[in-house]
Structure formats: structure tokens, C-alpha cells
């Protein structure tokens, strides 16, 4: 069990770090565009889409890492006063709602992406890149979130039942 949980952590961290480089790509794209526009007077027709797509994929793929690192904000007015074990009990219960959201979202985003793949949908701009990869990345991101959520659930359940951390 512990191995499984650690493996999921590793996947989330890997995906998050890989996605992080998109920020660097976006910064480069912006700099290139500015330089081309003002120094060479030849604005690109693809940079704004690269920027937007890069960030879009970043949001999707990095979320599981943020969950693994416990970064998503919550309100701890009541929750914060509980003992770690009680918190784990509450978390194991609220996991149901997380799972509900994520599984429905996985289904809906999957359907949304599938439609786009069937059409081989493109953005319809001058550059006209395909947009289905971004929709697929959203599905993948949700899938990674579910994996990380399950790992967290296993940890919480272990702490809740056995009273010690996994």
C-alpha cells in the first residue's frame, strides 16, 4: 500500500515539474513576440496562442502536485482545531464529495474531448493549431487529480483507522 501511495506521489510530482517548464516556454514566447514586434517590426501570428495553450496545459497538469503538496486552500476555522486523527476521519468522509466532483468531471471532460478529437477540431485562427490536445490534457489532469486524491484517501483512512501514519 505504501509503495502504491509513494508511486502516485512520484507521478504527480513528475507531471507537475514537467508542466512547470511551460511557464519558461511562455516567458520565452512573450519575449520573442515583443522582440519581433518592436525590434524587427514583424509580429508573430502564433505567440498569443502558444502563451494561452502553455498556461492552459500548466493548470491542468500541475494540479495533482499542488494537491500532493497540500497547497489547495481550505478553511480551518473548525477543521484546524481537530486532532490529526479526527481530521483524517473527516477527510475520509469528504473524500466522497471530491470523488463525486472529479469522476463526473472526468466523464464530462472526456466526452467534451472526444467530440473535439472526432472533429479534429482546430482553433480557427491564422495559425490554426489543433485544440484537442489541450482538451485531452484537461482529462489527463483530472485523472491525475483522482489518482492523487485516492492516495490521500488511503493515507487518511490508514491514519483514521489505525491511528498511525502510513
Amino acid at each position, binding site marked *: 500500500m505504501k509503495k502504491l501511495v509513494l508511486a502516485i506521489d512520484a507521478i504527480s510530482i513528475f507531471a*507537475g*515539474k514537467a*508542466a*512547470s*517548464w511551460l*511557464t*519558461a516556454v*511562455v*516567458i520565452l*514566447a*512573450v*519575449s520573442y*513576440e*515583443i522582440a519581433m514586434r*518592436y525590434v524587427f517590426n514583424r509580429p508573430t501570428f502564433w505567440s*498569443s496562442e502558444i*502563451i*494561452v*495553450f502553455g*498556461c*492552459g496545459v*500548466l*493548470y*491542468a497538469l*500541475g*494540479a495533482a*502536485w*499542488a494537491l500532493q*503538496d497540500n*497547497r*489547495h*486552500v*481550505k*478553511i*480551518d*476555522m*473548525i*477543521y484546524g482545531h*481537530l486532532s490529526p486523527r479526527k*481530521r483524517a476521519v*473527516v*477527510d475520509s*468522509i*469528504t473524500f466522497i*464529495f*471530491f470523488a*463525486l*466532483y*472529479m469522476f*463526473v*468531471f472526468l*466523464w*464530462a*471532460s472526456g*466526452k*467534451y474531448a472526444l467530440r473535439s478529437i472526432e472533429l479534429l477540431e482546430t482553433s480557427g485562427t491564422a495559425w490554426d493549431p489543433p485544440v484537442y490536445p*489541450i*482538451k485531452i490534457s*484537461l482529462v489527463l489532469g483530472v485523472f491525475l487529480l483522482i489518482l492523487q486524491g485516492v492516495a490521500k484517501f488511503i493515507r487518511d483512512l490508514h491514519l483514521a483507522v489505525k491511528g498511525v501514519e502510513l
Partner: protein
Amino acid sequence: MITLLLVGTFIILLFSGLCLAWSMGATAVIFCLALFAPNVMVMLVSRVYSMMLNYTLVAVPLFIFMSVMLQQSGVADQLFKAVHVWSGNLRGGLAIGTIISCTIMAAMVGIVGAEIVTFGMVALPGMLERKYDERIALGSICAGGGIATLIPPSVVFIVYAMTAGASVGELFIAGIVPGLLLVALFVGYIVYTAWRYPERAPAASKDELNVPLREKVLLLKGLIAPGILGLVVLGSIYAGVATPSEAAGIGCVGALVTTAINRKLTWRGIKDALWETTKVTCMLSWLFFGAQTIIGVYTLAGGDEFVRNSVMALPFGKWGVIIGMQLIMIFLGMFLDWIGIVLLTMPLFVPIILDLGFDNVWFGVVFCMNMHVSYLSPPFGPSIFYLKSVVGDEFSVNRIYRANMPYLWLTVVALAIIVAFPQVSLWLPGMMMGK
């Protein structure tokens, strides 16, 4: 009825410690499945998708990267030293220096947390060493750091502009005068306290004052890099040379260059900044996604009509509506972060205030000022927790709260001024953009 059930479900989930992002999404899914066909969820996903590809949102990760990078650059350190030495034998000089350095930093950094953490490390030890009263010392950092919400480039403005459909550039300009008004109030308070109760802000010692002029001038170097960076980022937005998102990208390059000039640029540092950017950005973006779904469901269920009717039913005409909205936001600010408040209330509030003939840029400034209040106020004051994370066990949360109180009231005064006199925020953008 739906409103009650929806808000109830959301609040129960939220208070049981489920993350804000998932609480919003789960509530949306439950009500979507209960009220509509499952296929409506696919429509909600398309709303999320359009958020993913939102051009303005790009500015958020970029400004975060810029802030994280600048934190490594040591700019804040130099800045504070320069302001400190030049403030000389002025009573309360260190605290005033903190506020002013915070303001200058705010012109480069758009995130309150980054500011407070930085100055908590740079400025606090010096003030405590000189036996400043903790109310002045702690309060000036929390209050000064909060100015980052009003002085452009502010991430709060970007997010507000996105939800309210206002222009980011105009909001940025509109924030300047109210931001400086706050600075003036804070500095005035410190000057008054230092004059009335000299023991709370001891003057600098003779040694510290005897800095040769040559050295003083050299210290000014610390102001050059921040000055140029702030000018380039803001200037390019105002001049219409670059979009705010592009300006943020330029700022990132500028932050990297500044760090390199200070010989602090390392491969490790860049990677850390990228990692940190990803985590903060993804936390924020999934809040956006969650808000898209819950607001989508609520609007489909006719909730926006309900909010409009109930807000309109408030007494005292349109000013009653504005004041009612402020109270709702202050109340929400007690337990929600600003971003949750923008995302949940603005899609419902902004159409109403536009109908009433108010300006959405002005409302954005009012909102920011309101969030400045919520940052400082208990029980959920983010700036207190940021500062707490730096000072460790030395000061309890309660002492930081108490230190913030005078600044909190001053901010409420500023809020009242901005609400009562819209010209304070609208004059500068009107002049610069010829509106």
C-alpha cells in the same frame, strides 16, 4: 430556496475542511445532477475550458514567477537599506521606511504574501532591535504588504478585471491614487504616534546617523533596478505597447536580469521559482474552474435573478445596495480568501452595479480596498498568517491582530473616502486614458 440549499451545501462542505476548489465543484455537480440533465455538465466543462484559455489569466502565473524571482534577488534588502539610511533621524523612520519600501516593491510585486514574507525578514529584525513598539513594527509590515493589492501590478485587479469584464490597464491606473492615499494615512499615523509617544519609536543612534554622504549616494543604487523594472512593466501597459500578460512576461525577464546583476541567479533558484509558480498557479486556477462550474449551475437555476431582486430590495436606494455589498464582502472576508470572494460574488454583483449606473473600475478599487480590510482583520486575516510564518513563535497571532488594529481602522477610513468620492479612483485613469 435553491439558493439556500446551494449555499448550505457549499458551506457545510467548506467548513468540514474540504478544499475550497473541490467544495465549489462538488456543490455544482450535486445541483447540476439534481436539477438538470447530466449533459449540462459537459456545458460546464466548456466554461472551464474557456477559462483555461483565458488570455488575461496568463498574467497570473507570470506575475507569480516574477515575485518569487524577485524574492531571491535581494532587491528588497537593498531597497530597505537605502530608504532606512535616507530617512535618517526622523522618528519612526524605520516603520515609515518599511511602508515606503513596501510601496515601491508593490510596483513590481503583485502578491501580498510575497511582500509580507520578504519584509518580515528584511525589516522586522531592525525595528525590534531598536526597541520599536510591536504595534508599530508588526502593523507596518502587514499594512504595508497589503498595499500590493492596490498598487499595480496587482493580481487582485487582474482577477477582478477578468470576472467583471473591466480593463486591466484602467484598473491598474485607478489603483494608484487610492494606494497612495493609504500610504499617506499609514505614514501619517506613524509620524503622529512617534511624536506623541516617543518611546514607541526610538530614534536612530549616533553611529547609524553618521553615514558618509558618499555611501548614502551609493546606497541609492538599490533603487535603480526596482525603479526601472516597475517603470518598464507599468509603462508598457499604460503606453499600450504590451498587454498586461505580455508586460508580466517582460517583468519575468526583468526579474531574472535583476537577480543576475545582484549575482544571485542560480539554476537551482530558477527551478525553485518555476516549481513554486506551478503550485500556486494550479491552486488558483482550480479555484477558477470550481467557480466557473458553481456559478454556471447557479445562473442556470435562475440564482442571478434572485440575488438581483434581493439586493435591489435593500433600503436607501442605490447607495444602500453598495453599502450592503460591502458588508457582504467584509462578512465573506472573515472566512474566505479574496479570490473566492471575487469569483463567487462578482459575476452576480457587477451586472447589478452597472445597471445602477456605477463604474466597474471604481467598484474594482472599492473591492480591493475592502480586501485590504479583510487581509488585516480577524478571524481569517491572510496577512497575519503570512507574517506569523516568518516570526515563528516569537509573536502570537493575537498580538499581530492587535498590532494591525490602528491600520485596519485607517483602511476603513480610506474605503469610506473611496466609496464617497469616486473621483479619487477615477480621476487618474480618466486623465491618462482620456476617458
